[in-house]
């Protein structure tokens, strides 16, 4: 019981499933404008994959993949992407303008204008934010024990 994390069975299954969960999350984000889903649900799935890693292998392994500093920067970057896309509309005259052409062709990936870009920003923000909140709760508990 010296090793951090859960038993071998859990670790093996998590090792296989994490990448699939991540891929599914990315799919939900990227196809958000065409199928049910979008930035928020996709981001939650991606964040959940990291939380799963953290639960199965212990927080050190998860923090090696994504440190708190980089989580904090990516979190802000997600929000800034969203805001940046909104501000880009000014070039064409209006805040939040959907400026890309070829809108509204069914079943094609890039036909929703700026919505996929916004979804990517939201997905990044939500996934990292969820992971960050989880890590914060984990670290907070440890800090309290030392007192």
């Amino acid at each position, binding site marked *: 019981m010296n090793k951090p994390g859960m038993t071998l069975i859990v670790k093996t299954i998590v090792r296989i499933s994490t990448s699939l969960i991540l891929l599914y999350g990315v799919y939900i984000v990227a196809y958000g404008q065409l199928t049910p889903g979008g930035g928020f649900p996709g981001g939650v799935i991606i964040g959940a994959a990291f939380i799963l890693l953290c639960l199965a292998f212990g927080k050190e392994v998860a923090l090696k993949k994504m440190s708190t*500093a980089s989580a*904090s*920067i990516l*979190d*802000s*970057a997600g*929000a*800034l992407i969203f*805001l940046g896309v*909104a*501000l880009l*509309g*000014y070039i064409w005259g*209006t*805040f*939040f*303008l*959907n400026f890309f052409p070829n809108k509204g062709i069914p079943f094609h990936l890039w036909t929703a204008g700026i919505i996929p870009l916004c979804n990517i920003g939201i997905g990044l923000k939500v996934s990292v934010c969820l992971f960050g909140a989880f890590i914060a709760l984990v670290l907070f508990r440890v800090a309290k024990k030392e007192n």
Partner: protein
Amino acid sequence: MQIIPLFIAVPLGAAFILAMLGKARHSLIDLLANIVTAFLLILAISVIGVKGTTTYSMGRWLPPIGIVLVLDGLSILMLVMVNLISFLATIFSISYIERFTAKAKFYAMFMLMIAGLNGVILTGDMFNMFVFLEIASIASYVLVAFGTEDEELEASFKYMVIGSVGGLFILLSIALLYGMTGTLNMAHLSQIIASKNFGIGLLFTSALLIAGFAIKAAIVPFHAWLPDAHPSAPAPISAMLSGVFIKILGIYTMMRILTNVIGIATLGRAWDIMLVLGAISMVAGGLLAIGQWDYKRLLAYSSISQVGYIMLAFGLGTPLGYLAALFHLANHSIFKALMFLNSGAVEYATETRDLQKMGGLSERMPVTGITSTVGTLSISGVPPFNGFWSKLLIIIAIVQAGRPVYAVIAILVSVLTLAYFLKVQRYAFFGKIKDTLMNIKEVPVPMCISLIVLAALCLIIGLDAFRIIQGTNASWFIRVMIEPAKEVLVNGTNYVKTILP
């Protein structure tokens, strides 16, 4: 008017950039935060005097489908107050927040709060308003707990629980309004409400709305969170919370929705509840303030009392009542921000908030002492300072509306206000200096600048208001700032005609 969305976009962007700059040098962070708030103040000043109603359709989606931002007299007054106080609070923070470790995080949350406040002021969409309201509220929960001491965390938790209940009341009423009318655009809502008879359902929704906004505005009996939350926050945040936060999230939203969307006539006699709530807040806040020995807690109770004045004048429903309410709102923003910054300066120098441990501070801290005297005289309604004129107008408005009992209460509470602020002056600033305080110094220059500017504003607005004797429009401040805001409220549900042609 391409600049309208910038009121929201600029602080939002600054918040996330500041959050990324966690480890950067403090001077850089100070500079960035102050440039942003100064820019916002300039933007707000540049829209003063814009006539009529300007609308901005986000992404060229026209109302009632798209979200629309609305800039009219009422929003301009609120924008100027928010951005003025936030600019002075950031200048004050340069020195004050050095005591805490995470300056970048502080400014990031501060910017998020400004984005939320500006959003609530500008939006013309009910649900959008709720979202911005929650952004501002959540940022304030974090800022109240910023010291992370036990007392602060407890205050923040209490604030969060009560604030969330308030938010849920508002959300429920928005859901009910949507269910009844099928739209969320404020102007469109108003049109549908006027065209059909919703009867008791609309009254129930209004009751929920009033309860929700009263929690945000800390009207008695919904005030339990404020006396804990406002003193626990760092002083610049207390100034923001008491100065503008409760007024934008509680009073402004109430004014906007009850007069412009639902309409006072629809509410009928239920409207009188505003007068009762206002009077109870005034009296209870004043009486509770007298017994306090904690400097900031006393100021917090005084905020409850003064917001009661605003509610009372607003509840009269007469044009002069609106004018007096808005004038007192603007004045209270200025002098309550000044007094909270004063308390912060005293805390910075003496490291205590207990009035009994202070004494004779004027001797060592002349700027803080003088500005605090100005604040005291303003809030107690002593001429020539601004508070005198707004309280006078409130009392005249009450008498004109034929409710002399409330006028008597207003005058008595004014005396009460003078009493508890004299207590502050007597114990903190006058008298002989205590031996333990012999080594204190005046606060650093940036903090003094904020105090002096706010005190000067109290005096300038007060002197300008002397011309009220020739008629309310003779005063520059009232003519340019308050009158257009009053017109919006007097116009009532005609609001819809300015947005949906």
